[in-house]
């Protein structure tokens, strides 16, 4: 449904998207994960035609975005990261207008608009102006505007930013409903739990580069059963390194230090909780002081930490 091959987008010297390829199929949700500035929006904007890719090939529902732009655009539904609504036009007229913009008309449009209104839970506010809506309601209408024309491929760029938990759940349900209808959904987020909840497959990008890709299960497996242990405090560099080495030699063979700073270190190991006393005593023998401990079980978030050595969100 959606094929991206060797996509590159350059801003001057900056590689905002650096040779990314992936494929998303019908009836699935494909997640694009990455921290702020990873290049998610840039990639999505290249697919939607808002930006012109520096190089690479993009096909939507079999149509090349460059060569058969009009057909490709007709198969695409975009829900932009920032709201894109006529705040001073009644909700129902927003939906009608965007339906018309995609060539729908007459009775088909009218009935589809009613369906979408019900689907996004705004049936009773159809005649009201979006500027009188809550943030969550605006998000839902923003979503509705992107699906009026029954797109085969949907692009959702961080649709849950600034959304309360209730509206967020509603949005997940709407995305799942679209997927169940056979739509191919490309979903960007920096919330790993969203990806785990919603996505069938995931690509993780950082600094424009694709660093890992697969189904959620595959990515979990890549992580193994290792926990992530983050410690804050004071850690003299040389002696800390030595202490970690000693711990590995004394039996914690899969212990690994991912990042090391004067005030914090990040370690990974299996069954972390069992080995905490040994780790603490070795570190304090080496002159370290632990003021804060954070032990996390394996998930996509810790995978990102493992892959890049940094947090997904600051």
């Amino acid at each position, binding site marked *: 449904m959606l094929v991206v091959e060797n996509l590159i987008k350059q801003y001057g010297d900056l590689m905002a998207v650096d040779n990314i390829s992936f494929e998303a199929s019908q009836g699935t949700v494909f997640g694009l994960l990455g921290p702020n500035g990873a290049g998610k929006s840039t990639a999505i904007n290249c697919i*939607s*035609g*808002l*930006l012109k890719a520096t190089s690479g090939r993009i096909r939507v529902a079999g149509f090349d975005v460059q060569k058969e732009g*009009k*057909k490709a*655009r*007709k198969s*695409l539904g*975009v829900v*932009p990261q*920032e*709201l*894109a*609504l*006529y*705040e*001073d*036009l*009644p909700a129902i*007229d927003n939906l*009608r*207008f*965007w339906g*018309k*913009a*995609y*060539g729908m*008309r007459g009775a088909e449009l009218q009935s589809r608009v009613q369906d979408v209104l019900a689907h996004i839970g705004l049936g009773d506010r159809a005649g009201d*102006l979006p500027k009188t809506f809550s943030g969550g309601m605006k998000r839902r209408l923003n979503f509705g*505007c992107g699906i009026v024309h029954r797109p085969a491929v949907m692009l959702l760029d961080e649709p849950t930013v600034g959304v309360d938990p209730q509206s967020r759940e509603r949005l997940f349900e709407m995305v799942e409903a679209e997927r169940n209808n056979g739509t191919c959904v490309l979903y960007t987020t920096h919330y790993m739990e969203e990806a785990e909840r919603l996505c069938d497959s995931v690509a993780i990008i950082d600094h424009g580069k694709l660093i890992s890709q697969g189904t959620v299960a595959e990515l979990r497996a890549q992580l193994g059963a290792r926990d992530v242990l983050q410690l804050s405090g004071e850690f003299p560099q040389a002696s800390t390194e030595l202490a970690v080495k000693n711990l590995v030699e004394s039996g914690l063979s899969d212990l690994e230090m991912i990042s090391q700073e004067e005030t914090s270190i990040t370690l990974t190991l299996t069954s972390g909780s069992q080995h905490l006393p040994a780790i603490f005593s070795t570190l304090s023998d080496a002159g370290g002081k632990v003021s804060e401990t954070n032990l996390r079980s394996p998930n996509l978030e810790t995978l990102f930490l493992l892959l890049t050595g940094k947090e997904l969100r600051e």
Partner: protein
Amino acid sequence: MDFTLSSMKKDLLRWMQDPTGILLWIVLPLMIGGMTALLFGGGGGVKPHGVLLIADQDDSLISGLVAGAFSQGELGELISVEKVSVDAGTERINNGEASGFLIIPSGFGAAFFESTPVTLTLRTNPAQTILPGIITDVTEILLDAGFYAEQLFGPEIRAVRTADKKGAVDEVLVSSVAVAVQQKIDSAATRIFPPALDVVIVEPPPTEPAVPLGFLFLPGVILMGMMFAANGLAGDYWTERELGALRRIVFAPSRLMPFLVGKALAAGLVIATIGGLTLFVGFLYLGIAWHKLPASLLWVAVSGIALFAWFGALQMSSSSRRAGNLVTSMLLFPLLMIGGSFFPLASLPNWMAAFGRRTPNGFIADQLSSQITTAGAWSIGAQNWLIVLAVAASGLLVCAWRLQSGFARS
């Protein structure tokens, strides 16, 4: 076509949410127009005072008295007479530096006594309306009545004077004076004047029927409303961009032109409504024949679209809403000033009026002015309609190009 209409409907629906702006575009020009109209006739403002150039080639007692008649009594305060040579007079009237130029040929005095026909030449300034009219009237009377005119028509001339002091020399007064004078001539002519005194005024025939003051102000006032509205509505491109809607348009498979044309049609409708209301009031107040209204209204709508298209193009070529507003308001007020919205084109010096007619709004106002002052339901030439349509189309093309090349994308 479908999307064009839907684009138009969307904007009309949106703009109707905020009718105060539209109301302002109606009220403001009427207020400014009313105020300048008052100022214009008022004591502190521009006071009708004309210069009559006289080339006296006869230089007789009689010709001297004719020339003197203009500078005597009440008339003398309205018109100052300057004696000039034929060459100097011709040059100055051509430059629009006087209200009228009267040539008294040699032999006039003799012809007067002998009651033989004689030809005087009176040239009036076509850029002015009221004073040349008075001069023409008075000259005709003088030539009919000789130098008795001042005594005979003192009351009427006095009426013009006092009215002028109150700041209301208007068409009604001038024409009522003319009627009164005509009646006196009719009743007294056969008794007082030698019937053989037959003087002809030639070149040019009164080029322009005296256009009432209100007629001069109406097009300018309408144009002011149109310009305010076109400029204000063009800012909506920024609003649409800030709302993110323009980006969605780029995602959509429909072309940009129907979107823009729909928007321009909506703007044309709003501008025609604003201009139409003012036109309606003006037609009613000035008693303009109603059959001139349809073409006037269509002209306002089509030119409104052209103005909107170019204000939009200017906005979209600017780097920010503030920069856009700065550029358009820097253009707006000088254009209104020179294009006849604050002072009617006919009241400006000739060179300035000629320049003003070449500004977009001056051109539109000038055509509208000829539409409402000349006879016939459709007085605007086909080539002028084409000009406005071409301007509208080119403006929309620039808008489409700007939308495509970046305005909608960021």
